């Protein structure tokens, strides 16, 4: 398996997914070698069936939006270099330890390596799509360079796993991929402990155009007039941070909104636990694991209608990301009506039990079996 990020170094769902998958697959009688760029902290495994192999070094943040002047520069070179290193390292391992049965890649960053290995070592290629260029750009000026790499990878893959029907549709409609070779496997979650609830409405995610924090702030202003003692927490960082701070000030929310910046894993769990409402107003969201995390901590969630999560989960509230009136209506209702909050929290926790990494691993294994035949 070729990945990019892995806890403790992580920026998004790709890392969480790779972690969950590589922890569950080895318990299913499978040996996994997980290739990833070398990190400062270093990732490791205690399971004899899981070996983490760090390759080269990279400082690339996969969700950064490179400015035009950088295109063709450092950013892409580093990605190419990583892919080349993975290929030579894999070929080396094959010589000493024998052939792999399947190669499994994640998103565009690893696609070049996957394609090369499929051709040079004759391995079946499985590709998981966690997000596409269309998602990351919020559907505004997607970068053709990424799209081309993504299409090439998708065309070469023997089977594609998408994290939602939503993403499957994008692969079919935007990349022209045969829907029959795409399997949808929804993400999962390791449950988080519930804390002492406070009147906190939480946004947590990268502060990029894709995640829609600006809509959260607009809704916050409407809620403030009706529930003046509520607090709005924006957790995370990203290129939109300065704009969002200005927006919060302009909306007169300086006393209500708290920007936490980047949080540690422990802090993230704590804030999920003590929040009363979680809002995921993403403009484009292939899945949205954070929603599962919030719900597992007993925090009712309002999610974008189009988010992959919304299609898979029943006990949540859904809104159009731009409909901040309705978002505010739902936030206030959750704060005011205890029976609503209680029912959503308990039914949500019950449903979350269905979203285990073990189930994801099982379904992924079925995909492996399919391409090995």
């Amino acid at each position, binding site marked *: 398996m070729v990945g990019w990020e892995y806890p403790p170094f992580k920026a998004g769902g790709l890392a969480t997914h790779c972690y969950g998958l590589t922890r569950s697959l080895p318990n299913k009688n499978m040996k996994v070698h997980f290739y990833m760029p070398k990190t400062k902290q270093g990732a490791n495994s205690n399971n004899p069936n899981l070996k983490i192999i760090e390759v080269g070094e990279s400082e690339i943040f996969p969700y950064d939006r490179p400015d035009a002047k950088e295109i063709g520069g450092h950013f892409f070179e580093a990605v190419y270099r990583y892919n080349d290193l993975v290929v030579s390292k894999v070929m080396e391992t094959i010589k000493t330890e024998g052939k792999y049965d399947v190669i499994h890649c994640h998103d565009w960053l690893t696609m070049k390596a996957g394609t090369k290995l499929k051709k040079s070592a004759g391995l079946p290629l499985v590709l998981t799509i966690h997000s596409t260029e269309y998602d990351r750009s919020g559907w505004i000026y997607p970068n053709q360079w990424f799209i081309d790499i993504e299409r090439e990878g998708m065309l070469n893959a023997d089977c594609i796993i998408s994290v939602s029907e939503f993403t499957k549709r994008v692969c079919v409609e935007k990349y022209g991929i045969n829907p029959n070779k795409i399997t949808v496997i929804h993400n999962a979650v390791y449950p988080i402990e519930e804390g002492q609830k406070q009147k906190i409405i939480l946004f947590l995610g990268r502060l990029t155009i894709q995640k829609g924090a600006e809509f959260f702030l607009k809704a916050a202003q409407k809620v403030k007039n*009706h529930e003046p003692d509520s607090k709005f927490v924006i957790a995370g960082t990203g290129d939109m941070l300065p704009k969002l701070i200005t927006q919060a000030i302009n909306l007169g929310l300086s006393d209500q909104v708290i920007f936490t910046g980047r949080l540690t894993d422990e802090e993230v769990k704590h804030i999920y636990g003590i929040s009363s409402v979680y809002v995921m107003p993403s403009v484009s969201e292939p899945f949205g694991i954070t929603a599962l995390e919030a719900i597992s901590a007993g925090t009712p969630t309002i999610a974008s209608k189009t988010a992959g999560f919304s299609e898979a989960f029943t006990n949540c*509230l859904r809104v159009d990301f731009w409909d901040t009136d309705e978002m*505010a*209506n739902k936030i206030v*209702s959750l704060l005011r*009506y205890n*029976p*609503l909050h209680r*029912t959503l929290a308990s039914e949500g926790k019950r449903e979350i039990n269905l979203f285990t990494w073990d189930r994801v691993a099982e379904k992924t294994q079925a995909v492996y079996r399919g391409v090995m035949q």
Partner: protein
Amino acid sequence: MTSVCLYFEVHQPIRLNHFSVFHIGGKNCYSEYFNRKLNEDIFTKVAKKCYLPTNNLLIELIRKYDGRFRVSFSLTGTFVDYCKNFMPEVLDSFKEIFKTGAVDMIEETYYHSLSSLFDELDEFEEQVRMHRDMIADNFNYIPKVFRNTEAIFDNRIAKKASDMGYKGIITEGTEKILGWRSPNYLYKPVNSDIKVLLRNYTLSDDVGFRFSARMWKDWPLTADKYANWMANTQGDLVNLFMDYETFGEHQWTETGIFNFLRYLPEEVFKHEHMDFVTTSTAVERYQTVGEIDVPWAISWADADRDVSTWLGNDMQIACFNELKNLGRQIKEKGDPELIRTWRKLQTSDHLYYCSTKGLADGDVHAYFSPYDGPYDGFINYMNILQDIKHRLK
């Protein structure tokens, strides 16, 4: 003799407008709570697919068999209001079918409400009287048989219906109250003198739910096969109670449901020991064979056959209590438009939409709900109740 008692429930819910917390305490008219456009659209659609064609078919069949083919109806007040507001020809059509003399009208609460579950039964009684007046006005008839909303039934309700003069009452033929006994006879409640008609849920649901289910081992269901099943059934009565919308709406024309209905009388009459009765004839002709004791309310809804469809979670109970508790103040205020609005909000469907029951039942709830899930249903309905509360201050 085994008699087939066909009874249809005819009801359309009152769908609400989107009403957010920000509307609470605004200068709203009561009529703004209700989504007139959506209600009209759905009513018109169902009238064309179901009410008018099925009525026409029934009239044709009643005439063809000289009134030996008989059916019974329960029209809710909200349904008749829709007829008057949107399509008077639908009500005319029901009047025409009633005039054949082969049709019985059944009583219920005007608003298809859960008022039978309130602490006091005064509101329930008022709504039953409203329904009685409505049937008298339109059909010049006083119903003899009572059927509470969704067949909700317990000893208290049975006693009340008996006290109000009804000869029969309808509920679900569930094992919960029958044990080993058959639903194909009349029974008597332990505490009152009224005959209880019990729905044969297997045979009723064969038509209502399973008719078009290709996974079902008995698909396709034909009139002769079904008549044979009934002919082989032991008992005085086969009570087939279902939504009228089964014909043409829940089961589309393409499933063959209308042809099934068309040939049903002919196939039933092939068996000499069988005939059709209305609900009133059934309670006149047959005697009770035993007692039933129902301390806890049952109904014909969902797999649970109790009231958890409407009062199964905290949200539903909160709404129900809020609604119930508004009653006294609203009546003291005496504004007729407010009382009417409060009653329209009592229609059981509002709480049905807030049900969080999973699995098979949840699918049925989702099919009928105008909301994106039970939580949206709760928010909208609760916001409206809060607006009323605000106005009473």
